[in-house]
């Protein structure tokens, strides 16, 4: 189902590479900063899964809404939130995209209609359904995209939300990032039917699966789904088969999977794959990659500086933003 890589243009390919490398390097820096105790709390890295966000975001318009999970750094960055604001948020600084109140798991941004950063598994699905309901009731043409992991599939909210979206014909794109493990529980150990996209089919929702390690494949699937949603005014469902290379969170000894399995998946690294393919087709050379890496390093450097130079909110403001002040 994925488009042949040969169809990728240099320009398109470079953008994806750049997007994926930015996410990868930013997160590697985050891991380093976590070790230095600059970033605290839970830190869930997206490393290995970058192709999903990179292949999806370009198909959305600025008016569309994005709902994500606690593993959302990549989605936030590629949706257009500045790395500065994301890094400052990880630090808990006032300059962060959520004013420092959310941290790694709760990146929010009104400007890009990025609705989190929801850290209760499956909790974001009803939210996306509601956003789409509002659009439908107000006759707006935009759609809502909801990213979630395959762990959410076992939750009641997943089924309730799919049913409601289908029943009311709401413009929602559900994107399941199936990385095979709900924290440490393998898909086969938690689901009777592991073909997740078939569950969506049972609600009468257009549904397909794509190779989540291949950005082209992801992009093709998302483009098709988004087009359908805009035309049919109905929800769609995509299962992205992917894998996280790093632990679930920072403090995870990974007792639940073999080293060999991880290494095997690492062979499928979406950045390496796309780089190799484009080099083979002589669309890019090392200088292109070096350029991206250099730019990214500079962006990260300035983001860290920005976060370091950010301000701690005064404790006197502790109870701010619990209720709307103006009321």
């Amino acid at each position: 189902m994925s488009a042949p890589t040969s169809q990728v243009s240099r320009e398109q390919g470079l953008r994806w590479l750049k997007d994926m490398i930015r996410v990868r390097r930013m997160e590697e820096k985050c891991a380093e900063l976590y070790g230095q105790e600059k970033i605290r709390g839970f830190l869930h890295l997206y490393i290995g899964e970058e192709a999903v966000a990179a292949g999806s975001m370009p198909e959305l318009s600025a008016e569309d809404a994005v709902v994500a999970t606690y593993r959302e750094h990549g989605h936030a960055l590629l949706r257009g939130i500045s790395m500065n604001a994301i890094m400052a948020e990880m630090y808990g600084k006032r300059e962060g995209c959520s004013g420092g109140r959310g941290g790694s798991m709760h990146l929010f941004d009104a400007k890009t209609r990025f609705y989190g950063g929801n850290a209760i598994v499956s909790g974001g699905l009803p939210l996306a359904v509601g956003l789409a309901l509002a659009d439908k009731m107000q006759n707006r043409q935009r759609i809502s995209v909801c990213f979630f992991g395959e762990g959410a599939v076992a939750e009641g909210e997943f089924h309730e939300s799919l049913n409601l979206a289908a029943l009311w014909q709401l413009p929602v794109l559900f994107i399941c990032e199936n990385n095979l493990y709900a924290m440490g529980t393998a898909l086969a150990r938690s689901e009777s039917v592991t073909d997740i996209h078939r569950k969506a089919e049972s609600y009468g929702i257009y549904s397909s699966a794509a190779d989540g390690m291949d950005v082209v494949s992801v992009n093709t699937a998302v483009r098709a789904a988004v087009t359908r949603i805009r035309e049919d005014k109905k929800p769609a469902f995509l299962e992205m088969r992917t894998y996280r290379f790093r632990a679930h969170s920072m403090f995870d000894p990974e007792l639940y999977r073999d080293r060999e399995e991880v290494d095997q998946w690492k062979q499928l690294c979406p950045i390496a794959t796309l780089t190799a393919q484009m080099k083979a087709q002589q669309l890019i050379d090392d200088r292109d990659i070096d350029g991206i890496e250099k730019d990214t390093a500079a962006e990260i450097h300035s983001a860290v500086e920005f976060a370091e130079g950010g301000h701690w909110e005064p404790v006197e403001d502790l109870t701010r933003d619990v209720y709307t002040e103006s009321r």
Partner: protein
Amino acid sequence: MTTTYREAMRAALRQALQEDERVFLMGEDVGRYGGCYAISQGLQQEFGETRIRDTPLSESAFVGAGIGAALGGMRPIVEVMTVNFSLLCLDQIVNTAATLRHMSGGQFSVPLVIRMTTGAGRQLAAQHSHSLECWYAHVPGLRVIAPATLEDMRGMLRLALEDPDPVIIFEHNALYNREGELTEVAVADIRRAAIRRPGKDITLICYGGNLHKTLEAATASAESGIDAEVLDLRSLRPLDDETILASVRKTRRAIIVDEGWHSGSLAAEIGMRIAEQAFYDLDAPLARVCTAEVPIPYPRHLEQAALPQVESIVGKVREVMGQNV
């Protein structure tokens, strides 16, 4: 005008739907069926299926959808049939509705109104008789209100819709059929507690479905020469400390009447606030009349024995006043 609490809420819904196109009502059986308690009867014919929206039995999804729709510019009124079923959407209310504004650093408000029926007294047994208002009143980010008078039943909804943050309205099932004289709607308030009966000897603090029992108890206590003041909280979160403390400082005694269970109850919270802020004004130990620590039993005599009653309130009043019987 003579009306019932049910009609008062229906009139409030109708007015809200007429005044603001963004307002819509959704919930289980609110449309065709007319509402489990017949609150929304006739509204679907009047406003259509889009705005009076029947939902599947998916509390979490439709409450979450209400949150999303509120974020998307609508003014949803979500009816969760009863507080008992709200446990199925506790996650959406507590983890999402209450936190979004804060987690987003003030970027997103959730102007959502959730209505639910609460309370026991109709022999519906253990799973359909909860009074869990205090669970919600525990959570920063939510506003929790409870109408006790016809005026508040008629007027609180509009005030809740004007609030930019999530508001939960608890409607006690015992009120719906109650008939009375509806005076001015403008007197409704969701911020300040109300003195429903002035008195000088003791403050009886109550809310929602227990206001009438408490007023009866106050009348009965007057026969023993006790002049009780009855305070209707109206807002369970935030609590109107100012009005509560002013009353208790005047009467120097307080009993909290609360249909929740004793342990960890709203009564416990109010009592603690009084102890913290008005200890030296007290002339008697604080007391409360709550529901016995038992899942609500089915047989009528046992159910009634478990709940706050006029007699138990009167008994507690006399005890606190030192009129030991």
